């Protein structure tokens, strides 16, 4: 299940400040996930990374921006400057928001070609997070990655 992108044209678009480059804190934190000693450290880290993403104002948490296929609610917006793609996203689950931040670390500001070639499975496997990619209907990560790819290909 991925969102209907055409409907987003009628959705209020967040202003450009939402799409500014990601804080370097995120890429630093992503590398520390690989080194986490136990599951507690790993998930504490994931939730901290989520906090780095600016929270979306309530006005933007609308159904047309929702990525379906997730047990929690998740919203995703896309902004394009020439061939570069920028995203902003939020979720009401702290872990999902952290996972989104990790996803954006690999896709935010990237080109159409880079996003088309992005290998979600490989990326999450490297971080020791492949368990979060189950095809179960409750996990929205695959749906979020597909939505990012669709935006970039549109």
């Amino acid at each position: 299940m991925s969102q209907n992108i055409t409907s987003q044209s009628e959705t209020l678009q967040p202003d450009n400040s939402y799409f500014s480059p990601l804080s370097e804190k995120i890429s630093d934190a992503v590398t520390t996930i690989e080194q986490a000693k136990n599951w507690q450290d790993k998930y504490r880290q994931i939730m901290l990374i989520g906090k780095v993403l600016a929270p979306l104002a309530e006005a933007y948490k609308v159904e047309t921006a929702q990525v379906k296929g997730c047990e929690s609610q998740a919203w995703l917006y896309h902004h394009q400057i020439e061939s570069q793609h920028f995203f902003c996203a939020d979720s009401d689950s702290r872990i999902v928001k952290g996972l989104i931040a990790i996803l954006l670390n690999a896709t935010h500001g990237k080109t159409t070609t880079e996003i088309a070639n992005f290998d979600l499975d490989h990326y999450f496997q490297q971080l020791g997070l492949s368990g979060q990619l189950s095809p179960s209907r409750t996990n929205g990560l695959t749906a979020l990655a597909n939505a990012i790819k669709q935006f970039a290909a549109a």
Partner: protein
Amino acid sequence: MTIAFEHDAIRAQFPTLAQQLEDQPLCYLDTAATSQKPQSVIDAMNHYYQLDNANVHRAAHQLSARATLNYEKVREQVQGFINSARLDEVIFTHGTTESINIVAYGISQQVNANDIILVDSAAHHANIVPWQQLAKKTGAIIKPIPLNDELSIDHAAFDELLKLSPKLVAFSHVTNALGTVNDVEILVQKAKSAGAITLVDGAQAIAHFDIDVQAIDCDFYVFSGHKMYGPTGVGILYGRFDQLDQLAPMLTGGEMIKTVSFAGTEFGDLPNKLEAGTPAISAVIGLGAAISFINALPKEQVRQHEQSLLTYLQQQLIQLGDIRLYGANKHNCGVVAFNVSSEHHQDVGILLDQQGIAVRCGHHCAMPLMQQLAIKGCCRASIGIYNNKQDIDQFITALRNVKELLL
């Protein structure tokens, strides 16, 4: 024949529970979603495929005769298990959802515009959506039955709704999201006095209670094999003969007919009329083994064991603190629904999963109930015959770790 109550010996019959997850013993608290299966059920299905595999009710050879005999024996087992008056009141389906759909589809010719259908507010979607589809098709009107403070059906509100002379009333025996137990016999009696057809969803009750459909006196009672230690892919539609016989078949085709010609087709008699196509034969055989397994257990001791385990679970959650319980009371059956403070249920579920704990986190396919509770969803721990005190202790320890991370 009953066995003495040796709980460890019962638990040892379930091979899935012997495994480790995340370096911990698997702690399976998701029986309300589907129960684990004892070795005897797995063996019965393997035996069928290894030695008896043939289609039923068709061929004139020995293998088919044996398969048919064993398949029909299970129908007799089910009849005894739920105490239905007639053998042909037991219909094999693929599960509770299909059973309800067969009734909702089959009854549509009897339903007129503006007929009222009353539906349990706490029902599972499987006992809501088919009625909505029926209403769309016929112009009937769905009215939810309100809940009381304990989140079971509110009798006073129900009495008021019955004054509208509903055509049909559908409710849960035990709710899947909260484990609240409805007083089915009284509800059915009231509905019948108002002239309504009654359907009871017994999916969450069948593994925990003795079910006597004649004592309940409902027109339809439905349940699944996979929630009563049997396999997936098989369920039961029990219907009172006169009601069942009036249903238009949802599925038509092989083996449900008397005669077929291009001039017209005559349907067969019950139960064949509602069992078109090749059934899930191995699953039916497995269901028979599951019934034998349940029948061999000392019922009273099992009930006490499950009830004391549930009480212990409720008490431990309250003691842990920062836990919100939903609809928890001493009459509940098999299920505790909760959230950790105001944390998202998915975060709790992911962190429990890291510790080898299997619980369900979500809206439990009961969105109207979640709306009523003003929550997006919750976590649900549910127990079965195999669970023990160690499972609860492991779960509470894991939940304490989750609290430390989140709060």
